């Protein structure tokens, strides 16, 4: 389904070889660090950013993000802190913002309240990795009312019939998971990945994002012509944690260079 977000992405793709979506867990290491990361992302002309809402049981995430989720909760991040941060980021930065989180937050908040809060605070859409297609109907209806894009996840393990249904329910762009496993482990970009992206393309003309295990400019170069958006999450957080803000800026610049 075409939307403001997909139009934005298509326009950006006219100027770039591949787009870059980055990620931060709100509240980890701290809100100040998150803000500094976003400022660097703006300088690097990042195309889209996922703001992760921390959850105590992040089952689709690897050890780095699991720890980040837990530390963010220890730092006292609650829904208000999360949405305040999103509103500030929406006002200050140019890139579209997506919520990534787990379904229990949405279930407990209530579908209607979730959608209206997201829309009010400036989000373009959301990803909920543990919410299956079979449970989405009500939330998708409300998302349409609020002009939010529920981002669907395609995986190489899906049979064609399921992949087709997932693509048919897509909005904004499709998030293609490069491999089995959770976030953070290294992905080898090989012909299997390209084949998988081709399968996704067969069922949708939405922009295709590829995530899980990408880390550097070389990965982005390999993906050009196959995927429209590269998603970099864990690798950047690792750089921030291990080497600090300056290395983070260099890492972002290296990625940004590969997009043009």
């Amino acid at each position, binding site marked *: 389904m075409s939307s403001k977000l997909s139009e934005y992405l298509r326009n950006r793709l006219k100027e770039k070889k591949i787009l870059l979506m980055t990620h931060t867990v709100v509240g980890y290491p701290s809100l100040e660090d998150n803000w500094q990361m976003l400022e660097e992302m703006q300088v690097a002309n990042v195309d889209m950013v996922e703001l992760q809402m921390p959850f*105590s*049981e992040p*089952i689709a995430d*690897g050890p780095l993000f699991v720890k980040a989720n837990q530390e963010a909760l220890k730092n006292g991040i609650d829904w208000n802190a999360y949405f305040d941060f999103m509103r500030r980021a929406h006002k200050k930065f140019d890139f579209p913002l997506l919520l990534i989180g787990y379904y*229990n*937050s949405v279930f407990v908040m209530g579908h209607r309240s979730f959608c209206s809060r997201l829309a009010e605070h400036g989000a373009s859409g959301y990803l909920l990795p543990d*919410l*299956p297609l079979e449970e989405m109907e009500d939330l998708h209806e409300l998302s349409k009312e609020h002009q939010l894009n529920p981002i669907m996840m395609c995986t190489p*393990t*899906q049979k064609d019939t399921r992949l087709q249904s997932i693509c048919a329910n897509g909005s904004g762009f499709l998030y293609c998971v490069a491999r089995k496993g959770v976030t953070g482990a290294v992905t080898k970009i090989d012909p299997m990945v390209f084949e998988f992206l081709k399968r996704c393309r067969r069922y949708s003309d939405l922009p295709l994002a590829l995530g899980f295990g990408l880390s550097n400019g070389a990965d982005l170069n390999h993906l050009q012509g196959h995927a429209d958006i590269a998603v970099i999450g864990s690798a950047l957080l690792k750089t921030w944690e291990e080497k600090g803000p300056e290395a983070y800026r260099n890492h972002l610049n290296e990625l940004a260079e590969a997009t043009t």
Partner: protein
Amino acid sequence: MWSDIFQTEKPGYFGQFGGMFIPEILRATFEELIEAFESAKTDPSFWTEYVQTMQSYSCRPTPITYLPNLSKKNGGAQIYCKREDLNQTGAHKANNVMGQGLLVKRMGKSRVIAETGAGQHGVATATMAARFGLECTIYMGALDVERQRPNVFWMEQLGAEVVAVTEGSATLKDAINAAMRDWSASMDDTHYALGTVCGPHPFPTMVSYFQSLIGQESREQILELTGRLPDRIYACVGGGSNASGLFLPFLEDEGVELVGVEAGGHGVESGAHAVRFSGGHIGVAQGYKTYFLQNPEGQMMHTHSIAAGLDYVGVGPILSHLHDEGKVRFSFATDKEVIDAVRLLIRTEGLIPALESTHGLAGLLRESSEMDEEDIVVFNLSGRGDKDIFNIAEALDDPKWREFIHQKSNEYRKASN
């Protein structure tokens, strides 16, 4: 038929509870498992092999034992217990893992992973893996590794790798998350033998099927022993596998009251407990919808119990449904009540119960003393207490045990210097 509870309009749902809230990457694996279980379920040769395996390897049927001394001492109803402690590896967990082991053989996988709280499911899985020649990895919360060292020792001796999970509260729920993460990368050759009636469909259904042996046997045996069905049956409830196994075959017997006993820890008012049906709210985590102990924003809370196997934040969706329908009544027992009940059972009947199972007994003792002498109550002695020797000795503050530990510690210290 009691098993009609599994014939639901929406597969894997029991009322509003259950479902398959899983990352899309795992979908195909769950579908493969559903297909394998559905095909096995209707294959008489599978059940023949299962029953034979349970008889020859796990000493089934386990008996029901009358407890005359305890009945007399406590007053009130006559107390019986179902002896799941006599299973291979000392707990009801064998019923489930041997069933899943036979499914692994059908699916042609070579590796099995599992999570464990008290360690009983880990030991049972490692045993099954040794028996069937499978590689085995067990995820266990680091805190549980500390308090259940004897079980960790046995898992390792059985050839399993035990991974201590340090994330979150370092208990059972975190071990489940870690096992799920492993599975999402290793699904091609690996089966996740989930240990209880929780998690995404088909686990609640599948594990309940395997565990329903407990209730089927109990029903026949108590009829044979006493000529009638019991007035009340009790089982402890962590995830709820032994309770589901005992309760389901009695579901249509209107005169039998089903009582689940949760872990009251230091008491509900203390906040350090695992009483989901008093303090919990409906939510979606770890792949399914049920009552969870969570804060108002849906973050799972830390739980506590002296029994590692009951220290779990959620509860099986079938039990949540039966609770809401008023078909199972839930109560809880505190750590202190449990220790008192352990001591009483050991002294009066010569049975050494697991701390988990003793919650069922403690709930029973509180209520059965008010009942008539003609009344009959049964509790599920779901596991034996050998594994709890350190915790029980510590709780009883036994001076000779303390001296023994000091002495051993000194010997090890001297040897390493």
